[in-house]
């Protein structure tokens, strides 16, 4: 009798984690040592260095907060180091996640008697590359030999699809977890599950609901003269106690009309007070309403982006603890206009889906079994572990006795079906279509037939296939590409591309790189994001080719064949082949999100406020109501970011990360608006340049130049209509050059130019030399010596200050696309 497969799926949550297993027939939730299916994502390291995970650790969150850490999931992929003073250790968020995963792995071993070697781990859909890589690394640290990642909404969708059975049409997974919000639009058609689109917010979750309730409590306490300041590190303990109480109140408010927030002996600046507040459901709903609205705005944005209007959804699946909030359910139903999927546990759906996904990719968690004594010629079988197709193919190859076995026969273990004998190819391969039983695991026996039709037992003799859903390769959630020197992005993998994936493009260098030049590096920045401008996308890694590695100069325009590969574990591989040198470079420095200082954040915030104000003013003057409305809707996020920065001052790392993300998103919005405004401005510049050139060429140009000017102007207009900025600038430069050439034919031109340069001598790169030249120039003007004036002006030009390299905007990229 064959052992059932062990497909393991883990939901590594911000607040709680869960593990489920699927044996090709049913899903089982694994209970931890305390009998619960939910294990809090909390890690404590005591003075002896003992690590405690889960509910036991959570008890110390209030009493020993410095040695007990929670909610580190959102910090994965950053350079934060979390200290555990009692033991004198520091750990990265990834290492703490590894402890949680280790604990879950042990729970499986305790319940089922086998420690899984392979598993599927869920990650938020909008996790970036370094975050998914960190999750993968955490699982490897926890003892898994192989791990695959799946986005949480996709996992929920698989579980919902498995449970709800076959229904066609679009549906939505609304996943509001402890720290992140993911919404996914899916479609099921003939059992094929397809992810149509993703959206979400990496910094919106149940934790923010707690914080809203906390703010309510803080405001009430302030009214009573007890002032608790998030920015004050001395109030950190009080804030923690308040948060725990708020969390309990929040849970109570899902079933009661009011809930108390009671804390005895709260110490605030030496003043000990008893907190005894009552929060009603309307108060709570008023506090969290804007958060719910924010999530719904993201949902409607996703639907609109995919051409779906009101009432188009078949159903909505709610995932995550905070979705039990009555107001939330009410608002979601009202805005999205669809019923909820029934019979689905929002707390464990992700883990169930992850386990199902492990089944679809045949990621059996059991250690590789020792091969039993050979009972027949070996055959290598390939078949889907799970599929929605009732008649899939089973493909195989005879590894032994391929000459004697002529045909293959497969029969179903219930005896109700068997295949016709299928001839093997000359190389021993065969493909047989089998028939499954609907919505169950079907077992088959496979045997060979020799030339006389005699049956030959093969090894393995049996296999099974589960009928369920077909997902196919999990899709990439954010586009990945390479930043170019002109600040554009060469997209390699579009959002939604199936993983794993590999693409190669040929790019060209933008400058000559000489070998051995210290510090000179050809940079290939890898970015992630949907923006057309590279500087707005997140830099996730850089492949660097130091000039010291070059054996010969690399001239401008040299071809660089750049390959990027991304696997299902979120691991990125990059390789650059330079044909001219016949070398391959593949050292990619993957980036963690750098820790930005709070001062830098505050400074960035002020600059953004100024930019926003300037843009608003410009929008007002241009009567651009739409732009003005966009800006005024977005500005409150800056206030939120400011609050988060203040909380970060008080020790809330998560708030700091959230502030950084908000400012980055706001920067992107402003850049988008600026780009929109820049285009009409460019149109005006074209007309100005042309007008200047026409006036000079008309008087001092020849016929050929006039003709060239007209042709260039037409080409420039055409490029403007096609929104081809590079071509516009090139043609505009030619227009200006024609104008300038004609201008300098005017007898007085060199004198005027000299006066202009002489007035700016102070800005020269060599002021002394420039002053000398200016003096000589004045003498030449007096003597009307045009040749000398021209020579002096040319030299003054060479001393003019140089513009900074634009390459910095493209993350310092050294490549361009033809």
């Amino acid at each position, binding site marked *: 009798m064959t052992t059932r497969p062990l497909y393991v799926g883990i939901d590594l949550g911000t607040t709680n984690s869960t593990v489920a297993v699927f044996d090709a027939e049913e899903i089982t939730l694994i209970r931890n040592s305390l009998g619960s299916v939910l294990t809090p994502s909390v890690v404590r390291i005591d003075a002896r260095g003992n690590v405690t995970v889960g509910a036991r650790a959570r008890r110390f969150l209030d009493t020993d907060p410095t040695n007990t850490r929670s909610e580190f999931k959102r910090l994965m992929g950053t350079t934060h180091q979390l200290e555990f003073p009692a033991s004198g250790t520091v750990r990265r968020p990834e290492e703490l996640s590894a402890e949680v995963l280790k604990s879950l792995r042990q729970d499986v071993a305790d319940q089922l008697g086998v420690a899984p070697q392979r598993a599927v781990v869920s990650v938020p859909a909008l996790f970036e590359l370094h975050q998914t890589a960190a999750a993968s690394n955490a699982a490897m640290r926890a003892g898994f030999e192989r791990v695959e990642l799946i986005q949480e909404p996709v996992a929920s969708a698989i579980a919902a699809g498995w449970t709800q059975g076959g229904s066609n049409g679009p549906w939505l997974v609304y996943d509001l977890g402890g720290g992140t919000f993911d919404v996914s639009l899916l479609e099921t058609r*003939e*059992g094929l599950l397809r992810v149509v689109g993703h959206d979400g917010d990496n910094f919106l979750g149940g934790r923010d609901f707690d914080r809203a309730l906390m703010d309510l409590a803080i405001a009430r306490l302030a009214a009573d003269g007890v002032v608790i300041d998030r920015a004050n590190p001395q109030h950190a303990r009080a804030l923690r106690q308040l948060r725990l109480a708020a969390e309990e109140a929040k849970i109570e408010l899902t079933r009661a009309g009011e809930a108390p927030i009671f804390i005895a002996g709260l110490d605030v600046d030496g003043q000990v007070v008893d907190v005894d507040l009552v929060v009603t459901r309307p108060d709570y709903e008023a506090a969290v309403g804007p958060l719910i609205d924010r999530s719904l705005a993201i949902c409607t944005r996703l639907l609109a982006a995919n051409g779906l209007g009101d009432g188009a959804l078949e159903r909505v699946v709610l995932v995550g603890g905070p979705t039990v909030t009555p107001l939330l359910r009410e608002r979601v139903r009202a805005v999205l206009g669809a019923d909820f999927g029934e019979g689905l546990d929002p707390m464990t759906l992700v883990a169930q889906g992850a386990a199902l996904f492990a089944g679809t990719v045949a990621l059996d968690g059991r250690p590789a079994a020792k091969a039993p004594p050979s009972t027949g010629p070996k055959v290598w079988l*390939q078949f889907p572990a799970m*599929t929605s197709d009732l008649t*899939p193919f089973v*493909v195989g*190859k005879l590894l032994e006795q391929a000459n004697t076995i002529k045909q293959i026969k497969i029969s179903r273990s219930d005896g109700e079906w068997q295949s016709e004998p299928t001839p093997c190819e000359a190389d021993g*391969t065969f493909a047989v279509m089998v028939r499954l039983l609907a919505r169950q695991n079907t077992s088959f026996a496979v045997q060979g037939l020799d030339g006389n039709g005699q049956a030959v037992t093969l090894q393995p003799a049996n296999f099974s296939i589960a009928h369920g859903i077909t997902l196919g*390769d999990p899709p990439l959630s954010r586009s990945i590409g390479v930043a170019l020197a002109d600040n554009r992005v060469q997209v390699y993998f579009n959002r939604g591309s199936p993983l794993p994936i590999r693409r190669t493009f040929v790019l060209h260098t933008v400058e000559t790189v000489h070998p051995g030049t210290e510090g000179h590096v050809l940079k290939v920045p890898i970015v992630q994001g949907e923006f057309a401008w590279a500087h707005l996308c997140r830099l996730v890694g850089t492949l660097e080719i130091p000039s010291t590695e070059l054996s010969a100069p690399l001239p401008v325009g040299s071809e660089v064949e750049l390959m990027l590969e991304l696997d299902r574990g979120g691991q990125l591989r990059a390789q650059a082949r330079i044909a001219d040198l016949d070398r391959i470079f593949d050292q990619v420095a993957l980036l963690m999100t750098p820790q930005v200082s709070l001062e830098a954040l505050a400074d960035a915030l002020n600059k953004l406020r100024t930019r926003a104000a300037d843009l608003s003013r410009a929008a007002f003057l241009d009567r651009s109501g739409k732009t003005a409305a966009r800006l005024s809707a977005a500005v409150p996020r800056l206030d939120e970011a400011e609050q988060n920065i203040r909380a970060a001052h008080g020790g809330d790392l998560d708030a700091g990360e959230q502030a950084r993300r908000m400012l980055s998103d706001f920067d992107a919005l402003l850049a988008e608006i600026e780009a929109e405004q820049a285009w009409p401005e460019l149109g005006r510049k074209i007309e100005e340049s042309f007008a200047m050139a026409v006036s000079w060429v008309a008087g001092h140009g020849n016929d050929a130049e006039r003709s060239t000017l007209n042709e260039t102007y037409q080409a420039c207009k055409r490029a403007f209509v096609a929104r081809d900025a590079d071509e516009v600038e090139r043609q505009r430069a030619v227009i200006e050059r024609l104008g300038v050439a004609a201008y300098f034919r005017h007898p007085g031109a060199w004198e005027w130019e000299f006066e202009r340069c002489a007035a700016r001598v102070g800005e020269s790169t060599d002021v002394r030399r420039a002053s000398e030249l200016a003096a000589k120039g004045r003498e030449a003007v007096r003597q009307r010596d045009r040749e000398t004036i021209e020579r002096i002006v040319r030299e003054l030009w060479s001393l003019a200050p140089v513009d900074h390299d634009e390459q910095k905007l493209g993350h310092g990229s050294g490549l361009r696309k033809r």
Partner: protein
Amino acid sequence: MTTGDPLALWRSNPFFVLEVATDATPTDVERAGQRLLALLTVGSANVQTYPTPLGPATRDAEQIRQALAALRDPEQRVLHELWASVIPAGGQASANGNAGPWEEAERALGWSALWAR
């Protein structure tokens, strides 16, 4: 820039790669892809080459998976259906067939080694 085969991209149309008709159901498409991937995994001979209306071409696992993904998206599928509906033209297309290449050129001058093959 030396042009490679201008029809290479056309030959890698997902319908050609998966050897399914343009009116194949989603299940047919998935089944065909699953079968081809499995055959490639076990190293079946001949599965790498596939016929197209524009001449034979070769495929690998990556192309098959990309083809499956492309055909799952309705817009992409319709786009590929258009390209796959080609009916090859017969006979001489050029008004003057004599103006074709001089294929023996390099060999005639003993210069075969100077062009890539």
